């Protein structure tokens, strides 16, 4: 079990995913004067999803800095600030809007250390509210983990719990290189136990959320919760599912996933990004290239987003990304050799 690093004396209490992120940012702002928050409407508005909330009242508008609607320029300012000694956390209002800033994230932030032969560091954190399910349609619902995961120099994480949302953000802040955090919008209100104080969840480590013998499901973000729900139903049918929370897209935790597939002999990858050329393709290839391949009793399956933009109509929107029954159906087919 790869549980987050935890100190025994640290008390736990329930916070929402959004509150956990806010708590992490508040701790960082209080601890290190180099930390600043930047983003659109993160000040008195409190952020489009109320993640920054009241931080501007505690730390003032210079450290919780509203930017103009300038994603490219704003991201670039964060990169330049990181390069010269600040520790900026830059919030994109929606991860979709990061497409306007690809230049600064991909060409500048990700490559600066390498291009300069290790003589520079860009410790910037990009926060990206991501995913579908809010009825916001095609330009406010995308899942771009694979896009950013394709870029050497970036680290890409996707917390699925309040505890990890805080721990991964603090780990990202401690990291000397750029980290992109995809926060699933449907998780912002989810409550869970969150340790108090400063702790980090290691980047690059998956978490086994449920152990099982018959099938490994590697899921990310909200799909972890759908996979766990499916696993409960399947358990009643005698199918014992192991659920791995990917947590980190880049780097990927090969060890945990390969060990699990060696044990279960079956793998389903469940992710919200478009199925083709997505995170599941990488995990599938990783297993195919590893010695876990010899342990496979069935083909690897991928459940991912439809080959379409995210639609507006609520039924269509649900149909565009994996839902709990889709995972159950796929698991039954796989375990009962119906594929």
């Amino acid at each position: 079990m790869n549980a987050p690093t935890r100190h025994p004396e640290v008390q736990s209490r329930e916070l929402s995913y959004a509150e956990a992120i806010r708590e992490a940012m508040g701790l960082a702002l209080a601890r290190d004067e180099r930390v600043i928050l930047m983003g659109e409407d993160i000040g008195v508005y409190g952020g489009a999803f109320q993640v920054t909330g009241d931080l501007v009242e505690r730390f003032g508008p210079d450290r919780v800095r509203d930017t103009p609607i300038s994603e490219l320029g704003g991201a670039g300012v964060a990169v330049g600030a990181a390069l010269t000694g600040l520790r900026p956390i830059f919030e994109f209002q929606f991860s979709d809007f990061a497409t306007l800033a690809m230049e600064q994230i991909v060409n500048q932030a990700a490559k600066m250390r390498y291009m300069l032969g290790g003589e520079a560091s860009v410790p910037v954190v990009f926060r990206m509210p991501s995913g579908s399910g809010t009825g916001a349609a095609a330009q406010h619902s995308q899942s771009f983990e694979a896009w950013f995961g394709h870029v050497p120099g970036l680290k890409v994480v996707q917390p699925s719990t309040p505890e990890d949302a805080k721990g991964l953000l603090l780990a990202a802040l401690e990291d000397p290189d750029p980290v992109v955090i995809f926060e699933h919008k449907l998780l912002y209100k989810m409550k869970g136990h969150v340790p108090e104080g400063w702790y980090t969840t290691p980047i690059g480590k998956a978490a086994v959320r449920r152990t099982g013998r018959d099938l490994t499901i590697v899921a990310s973000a909200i799909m972890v919760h759908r996979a766990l729900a499916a696993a409960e139903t399947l358990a009643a049918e005698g199918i014992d599912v192991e659920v791995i929370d990917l947590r980190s897209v880049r780097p990927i935790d090969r060890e945990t996933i390969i060990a699990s597939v060696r044990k279960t002999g079956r793998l389903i990858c469940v992710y919200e990004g478009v199925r083709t050329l997505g995170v599941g393709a990488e995990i599938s290839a990783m297993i195919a290239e590893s010695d876990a391949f010899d342990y496979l009793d069935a083909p690897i399956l991928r459940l991912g987003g439809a080959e379409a933009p995210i639609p507006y109509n609520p039924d269509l929107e649900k149909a565009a990304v994996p839902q709990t029954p889709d995972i159950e159906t796929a698991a039954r087919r796989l375990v009962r050799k119906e594929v």
Partner: protein
Amino acid sequence: MAKDDNTPFAIRNYEAETLRKALRKMYLIRFFEEGAEDSYMRGLIHGTMHLSIGQEASAVASCLSLTDEDKITSTHRGHGHCIGKGAEVGRMFAEFFGKEEGYCHGRGGSMHIADVTKGNLGANGIVGGGIPIAVGAALTAKQLGTGAVTVCFFGDGANNEGAFHEALNMATVWQLPVVFVCENNKYGMSTSTERSTAVKNISERAAAYRMPGRTVDGNDFSAVAEAVSEAVDRARRGEGPSLVENLTYRWRGHSKSDRNRYRTKEEIDAWIARDPILRFRDELMAHGIIDVDAAEGIEAAARQEVEEGIAFAKGGTAPSVTEVTRYVHAEARP
């Protein structure tokens, strides 16, 4: 140094030794780039490069009032800015030759030379890429109260990028200590500013960002030094950003692929006749800062430094091919 009002700004305001060093840096840029071009022709350097021969006054005069604490961001045509901000030509050549002794240990090449310790945040392969980064550096200075100023070099081509608009707007909204220095050499690759840009002078754009804008003769060392140092002083006083446009010209093509089909030989010759180095040298002689012997001595010393730099680079160490992924991330701390 009391000088009368007709004396050029640089000569009125800077020590003779500073001015001699500035001339030496201009020669260094010229000979460095000629040396790089020659090495490329001989097949000693691969890839491409963007030469700034003819633009030396802009690079050196813009950095004249900066300290090592001040920052610059540069462009794909950035060799002059590096030398202006204090880079050593030996380590620059080593980078061109792809050697470990280079500023980027051979990973960056011509388009990514930087020296963060000297405040040079790097050349940039993306047109306009450095402009928001400069504003970020200025934000750091303001936030931490370091007193540093950032000079942001970019070309005329970059003024039509969205990054230019976003960055200049933020610089004013936040009153940041940054000076935008546009080196207008008339062409974005082959496309002239007349064909690409809605305003006649790029400095006119400053009005849209409520900052001062000036256009100066970029081949006149003293004119550039005056405009940029005033803007730097203003930034340092906390009065916000400025835009200075240096009108200049690159004698060579855009890069090594350029066949010069978009401009005339007459135009190029007319600009060569306005050589910024000879103009500055003659000005220093006219004001008694140097004599002919001193001028020749400075030129010869620069030539020698470049030759030594090439020899240093040739003798450098090739990176190990096993280290292709080194420097992607920070190395593990002990």
